[in-house]
C-alpha cells in the first residue's frame, strides 16, 4: 500500500482526505512538500555519499577515532562494533530504552538514533570517558556505593543521563531526577537506589530506611 490511491478499493483515499482539509491547509502542505523536495535535490546534487563505506572521523572521550563506515552505521554501532568502546549498550536500537546514552557536546542522546557520519565534528563522551586516572566520577562512585546497579546492563545509560543532569543542574529535586531518567529503562528494578545515588552524587546525604530485625 505505498500509494493509497492506487489501491482503489478503499473508501478513504488520499484525495478524500485532502478534500476534508481546508484549501489553505492543502496549499500549505503542498508548498512545504515542494520546498522539501527542492532542498533535498539541492543537497543531493552537492554530495552523495555511500552506500559503500566512507571515512568517518569521530572525537570520542577526547581522542580521535578514524573509521571506515557505511553511512547507515549508527554512532552506537560505530562505538560498539568498530572500536572497543562497548560501554554504551544496545537494548532496543530504537530510542526506547536509553542503554546506549552518550553525551553529544555535553547533552545526553540515544547513540542508536544518530548516524556516525552526523556525529563528526562533535564531542562525544561515553561511559569509558568519565573516570579519570582510574578514579570513578562522583556519579559512578555513588552508583557503586548505593548499589544503583544489578545486572548492570542499563547502568552506563543511566550514568550518562545523570552526569548530564548534574552538570546542568547540580542540585536537582526528585522530580527533576525522574524527568532526566525518563528515557532510561531498567528491568532489574534498581530505581530506588538510582534515585539515592543521584542525590548522593549531588551532595545530599542519603540514608537507607531499610530496617533489619533480628531473630
Amino acid at each position: 500500500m505505498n500509494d493509497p490511491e492506487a489501491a482503489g478499493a478503499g473508501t478513504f483515499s488520499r484525495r478524500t482526505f485532502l478534500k476534508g482539509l481546508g484549501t489553505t491547509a492543502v496549499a500549505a502542505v503542498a508548498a512545504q512538500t515542494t520546498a522539501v523536495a527542492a532542498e533535498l535535490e539541492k543537497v543531493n546534487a552537492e554530495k552523495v555519499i555511500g552506500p559503500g563505506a566512507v571515512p568517518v572521523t569521530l572525537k570520542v572521550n577526547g581522542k580521535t577515532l578514524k573509521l571506515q563506515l557505511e553511512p547507515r552505521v549508527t554512532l552506537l554501532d560505530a562505538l560498539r562494533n568498530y572500536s572497543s568502546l562497548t560501554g554504551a549498550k544496545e537494548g532496543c536500537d530504537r530510542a526506547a530504552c536509553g542503554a546506549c546514552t552518550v553525551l553529544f557536546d555535553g547533552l545526553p542522546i540515544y547513540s542508536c538514533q544518530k548516524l556516525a557520519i552526523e556525529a563528526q565534528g562533535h564531542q562525544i563522551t561515553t561511559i569509558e570517558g568519565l573516570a579519570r586516572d582510574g578514579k570513578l566520577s562522583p556519579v559512578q562512585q555513588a552508583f557503586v556505593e548505593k548499589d544503583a546497579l544489578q545486572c548492570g546492563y542499563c547502568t552506563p545509560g543511566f550514568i550518562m543521563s545523570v552526569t548530564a543532569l548534574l552538570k546542568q543542574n547540580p542540585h536537582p529535586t526528585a522530580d527533576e531526577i525522574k524527568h532526566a531518567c525518563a528515557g532510561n529503562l531498567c528491568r532489574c528494578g534498581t530505581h530506588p537506589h538510582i534515585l539515592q545515588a543521584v542525590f548522593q552524587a549531588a551532595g545530599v546525604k542519603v540514608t537507607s530506611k531499610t530496617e533489619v530485625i533480628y531473630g
Partner: protein
Amino acid sequence: MASWPQPTKYISHVTTRVDGPPKATGRARYSSDIQADGWLYGMILRSKWPSAKISEINLDPALKIPGIKAAVKARDGEFTVRFYGEEIAAVAGTTKQGCLDALRAIEVRAEPRNEFVVNENEARKDGAPEVWAGTPNVTPGRPREHGDVDRAFGECTAVIEGFYTTAVQLHNSMETHGSTVSWTEEGITAWASTQGISSMRDGLAGALQLDQSQVRVITDFMGGGFGSKFGAGVESMLAARLSREAKAPVRLMLTRFDEALAVGNRPSSFQKIKMGAKADGTLHAFEAENYGTAGIGAGGDAGGGGGGANIPMPYLYPVPNFRVQQASVAVNAGSARAFRAPGNPPASFGMESAMDDLAVKLGMDPLEFRLKNDPNEVRQREYKIGAEKLGWKKKYRKPGSSSGVVKTGIGCAGAAWHGGGPSRDTHGEASINPDGSIEFRLGVQDIGTGTKTVIAVVAAEMLGLKPEQITVKVGDTNFPPGPASGGSRTCASVSPTVYDICQRALQQLQARTGISDARGQNWFAACKKLGVNPLVVHGDWIEGLSTRPAYGVQFAEVAVDTETGLVTVKKIVAVHDCGLMIDTLTLESQINGGVIMGMGYALYEERVMDDLSGVMLNPNFETYKLPGLADVPEIEVVLLNMPERGVIGIGEPATVPTAAAIGNAVANALGVRVGSLPITPAKVLAALGKVPPVATT
C-alpha cells in the same frame, strides 16, 4: 555440623557489589560485548506467519550480498512454523547492515495456513484450529480434590465467586538472548548470555554432536535473565552452525523485536474461584478452575520447559475442602519459559484477591482475615511488622469509602517460595598465592543478583580478610560446576561451598605452614610460607548452612483517579525473610527489583496478540510498558534476619505478592474489584461503570 560464625564482620552487613566498578565504568564485558578476532554478526530470519509450512528456503541470494560469509537454515527439509517469529534461517556477515540486507534477500517458499489461533479463549473452543495437528489445544491437568467440597459450601456463612485473570508477561531482560560462538577444530567456545553455563554446554554439545569436553561456555557478565536463559536456545545453535560455516566467531544477539517473540514469557491465567468461610472467618471450602496459555509450549512438545500454565492453588492457605481443575491451552505464540517464581504471582493474585473479596463479604478486616487463616508463623510476624510500618489500623477504611475524585486504598498479600533451595551439587576451588592474594572459582553465574559479592563476603568473613581482597571468578565451564542461577538457588548453594573451601584452606595452611590460625593478621605470613606454588583448595556444598523456603508479605498504598482510571502506587512496605542474610545491600536491591517487576505485572505489562493476523502487536518497549523511575513508589524494606535457619535465596519471593497487594489496594480504594491484570485505566473505568468493559485477551 557446620555452623555460621557469630558475631560477624561482613555477613549480614553492607558490602558494596564487588563488580560495581567494572559495571559503572563500562569495563565489564557482557556476552554482547565480546569482540573475538575476526568476529561476524549473526542475524535470524523469522516467520511472518503464525502458522505455515515452509517448503523451500533459498539462501543463495543472501550469500551474494557483500560481506556475508555464511547462511544456514533453521531446519532441513520441509517444516512447519507455529508462531509469528519462529526461526527460519540465519546469516553471518561482516556488518550488521549487510546482514539486514541478507535477511531480506533470502527466498522463502511457504504455504501460510489460515488455521491458527492466538487467543486462549478461542483456542479452547470446540472446533478451534489445532496448534499441533492431531493434538487437542487443551491439556487438562490432574484434578486435585480434598474433603467434601459440595457439602462444605453448604456449611459456609459467606461464599464469593470471582473471576481473576492475569496477562502473558515478557521477561524482557535488558541484554537480549544470544552469544558469541567460536567454532574451531578443537571445539567451540561460547560467550553466552545465560543463567546456566552447564545447561548451555549440555544443550550445545547434544545438538551439535560434540563431546561435552569440546564445549566451553563463558559468562563473565550477563544482562539479566529472570528465568528465560537456561537452555542453549535456537539462537545459540544457529550461531554455532554459522561459525562452523564461516570459519569465524559469530556474535548473534537477538533484537528487541526477536526477544519479545521467541524466548519465553509467563503464561496467562484465567481463574474462576469460588471460596467460602464460616461465620468466625475460618476458610472452609474452595473450588477453582484455571486455564492459561504457555504459547506453543502447551498441548504438544513443551521444549524449553519450566513454564507450564498450572499454578499452585489454593495458594498459602490450608482449606479443608477444595477442588482444583486446571488446563494449559496451546496457541500460536512463542512458548512460555520459567519466569521469576513460576506460577506464584498469578496464584497469589487469584487467591489473595479472593481472600479480600471474601473478607469484605464477611465484614472482616482483610488483614485480620489473613492472620486468622494463615498458619505460617513467619508470615504472621511479618504481617504484624508490615501493618505497623504502613499504619494499617489508622489507614484501613471500608472499600470505596475514601472521598473525592482521587480515591486512596490499602491492601496486602503474602508470599512463599518453596522451589529451588540449595543445590548439593555445588563445587568450587580457590587458589591461595604465596603473596596472600586469593582467587575463588565457581562454575555458577552472577545474573545481576550479586553472586560474586556473596562469595567475596563469605570468604572474607571466614578468612578474616576484607571482601576487596578476594578475587572472584564465576561463569566458566572450566571451573568446578554449580547449579544454574534460578529459583533463588544460587546464594544458598554457593555460601556453604565457599565456607567449605575456606575451612579446608585453613586446615591445609595449618598443615603446610605450622601456623595454627592463618586467619586475619596471620594470613600473609602463612601464605608466604607456601614457597612458590599456590595452594589450590577444592570444596563442596555442605549440609546445615542453608535451607528453604522463604516467605514474605507486602503492603501497598494506592491512589486511583476515578475520572482517568489511573492507578498511582504511593508506597510499598515489603517485609521479607531469607534466613541468614549475607549482604543486606544487594539483598535490598533484590527486593526492590522484585517489587518493581511485580508492579509492572500489576499495572502495565501485557503481551498483546492480534487475533486476525496472529501477529504480536507490542514487541518493543514503546508499547510493552515497563515501570520507569517516575512510576516507582517509595519502597520500605524490612528484613527479618534469622541466622539460625541458614542461607536462603530471595529473588523469587520478593516479586510474588506485589501485584496482589496492589490489586487489593485498588479494590479497597474503589469499592469494586478490578479482577484483571494489568489494571489499566480502561479496566478501572469499566469497573466503575463509566466505560464499557474491556475484553480480556
